């Protein structure tokens, strides 16, 4: 629970306006979704584990409701229902509070935080991925953060290809994901040794790789399956575009970032800013999501945490004055 008064509230509003005006110049239409909706919606949209973090309650008729734990689920549903006949792509943005009970990271623990987010629905591939990455970078640039931020990208298909290659069952897949995500190199080495006796160590080192284009080559030296390689190629093509836009200083490739959300199907993105202990934004491609509401189509988007950004920008301004 957090109050913003006077100057703080103005700063928060200014950051929100900056983000929304960037969305607007990129032709993203604002969407306002209900704060209270049927719990089922969020379970279909986010999966059970995430949705259960929401605040749930029943109305007088015993129907299970929830305070929205995300906006993406609602947007995916209207894209597949109300707006099913609208020409694609759909571009939506929002600034809306979301409510969650359980922290992913203790440092981002807030019951309520406001997401600045966007969704690009109905178009897949590199141009769409690049569009949302450019949007995220442009918003951050507007916030006077200097060079103190970094956007990390990865592609979950690299991991999915590996899990398929090793023929892992669900618990083993989750264990491998966790070991990579927490960069437990020694344990990771032990885990993959039985599958890859020769290059287990090189494989385990991959989880620690974060950097620029050279990371991709290092990955190709140890990854041979077609699915992962296709994802590495997609990432490389994206990186070439990032370089040609002169944005390579703001981006990093982080092969160890394997988020717990099972709904990402390709590109993933995280945003870090000096002064914030946890990420202040995340996103990616979730082509499976709208299918849960009856019409499968590609979709990509991200959210920034307005409260975390306000905190960091505010502290930065105080230090400079």
């Amino acid at each position: 629970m957090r109050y913003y008064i006077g100057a703080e509230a103005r700063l928060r509003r200014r950051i929100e306006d900056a983000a929304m005006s960037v969305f607007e110049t990129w032709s993203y239409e604002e969407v306002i979704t209900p704060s209270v909706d049927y719990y089922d919606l969020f379970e279909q949209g986010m999966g059970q584990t995430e949705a259960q973090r929401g605040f749930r309650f029943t109305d007088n008729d015993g129907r299970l409701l929830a305070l929205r734990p995300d906006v993406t689920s609602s947007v995916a549903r209207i894209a597949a229902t109300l707006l099913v006949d609208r020409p694609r792509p759909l571009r939506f943005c929002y600034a809306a509070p979301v409510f969650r009970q359980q922290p992913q990271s203790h440092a981002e623990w807030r019951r309520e935080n406001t997401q600045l987010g966007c969704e690009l629905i109905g178009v897949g591939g590199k141009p769409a991925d690049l569009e949302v990455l450019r949007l995220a970078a442009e918003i951050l640039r507007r916030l006077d953060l200097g060079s103190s931020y970094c956007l990390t990208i990865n592609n979950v298909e690299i991991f999915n290809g590996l899990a398929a290659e090793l023929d892992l069952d669900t618990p083993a897949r989750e264990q491998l994901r966790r070991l990579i995500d927490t960069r437990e190199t020694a344990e990771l080495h032990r885990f993959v040794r039985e599958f890859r006796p020769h290059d287990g160590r090189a494989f385990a080192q991959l989880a620690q790789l974060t950097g620029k284009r050279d990371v991709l080559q290092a990955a190709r030296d140890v990854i041979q399956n077609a699915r992962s390689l296709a994802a590495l190629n997609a990432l490389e093509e994206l990186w070439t575009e990032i370089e040609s836009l002169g944005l390579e200083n703001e981006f990093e490739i982080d092969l160890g970032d394997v988020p717990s959300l099972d709904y990402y199907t390709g590109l993933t993105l995280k945003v870090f800013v000096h002064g914030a202990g946890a990420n202040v934004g995340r996103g990616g491609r979730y082509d499976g999501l709208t299918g849960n509401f009856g019409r499968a189509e590609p979709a990509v988007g991200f959210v920034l945490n307005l409260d975390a950004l306000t905190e960091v920008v505010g502290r930065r301004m105080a230090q400079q004055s």
Partner: protein
Amino acid sequence: MITIAIAKGRMQDDALALLARAGIRLREEEVNSRRLALTDETGDYRFLFVKPGDVPVYVEHGIADCGLVGRDVLLESEADLLLPLDLGIARCRIVVAAADPEVMTRGAGMLRVATKYSQIAAAHFGARGMPVEIIKLSGSVELAPALGLADLIVDLVQSGRTLRENGLTVVDEITESTGRLVVNRASYQLKAQAVGQFVSALRLALNGGEAA
């Protein structure tokens, strides 16, 4: 400069010895002083000496970029951190011990478990479907069975001497614990060079000078 939180107590001497082998030295008179924040001789690192349970807190909030702390503490805290290195120091086991080893199998109703590690204990007995009442203590857990506060304890064991001297036997081993290097997720990206240098220096020291 990056900031490193070190767990005071059990692990501190081993951690400082490991840092020295990695070429990171603190002035002895400063370590022995009562100052809780020190800078190393090169000025590249700032060290915070905090209670073990606070290491994950400092690192998760990004106040410290890295931390040296036991796995037992990490399991208990459930903090979201990166764990790039097993330091192999302060090796010990987390065990279930009892004064009467039969107590587990006798089926004498709900057992009481005294421990500092309530999360680890709850997860352990929960996974076995054993109903237990967990009594959280902050130290001298070995006393609890003798005084009738609990039937079992869950605690760290290094040599086993404290257990023996208090008339306790190990009935089950939950897991092993060693000192770990933990890194904040944001620092890992934003201070990649400095953090990477620190991780490599420690890795080199662990491998006896040979790079992994």
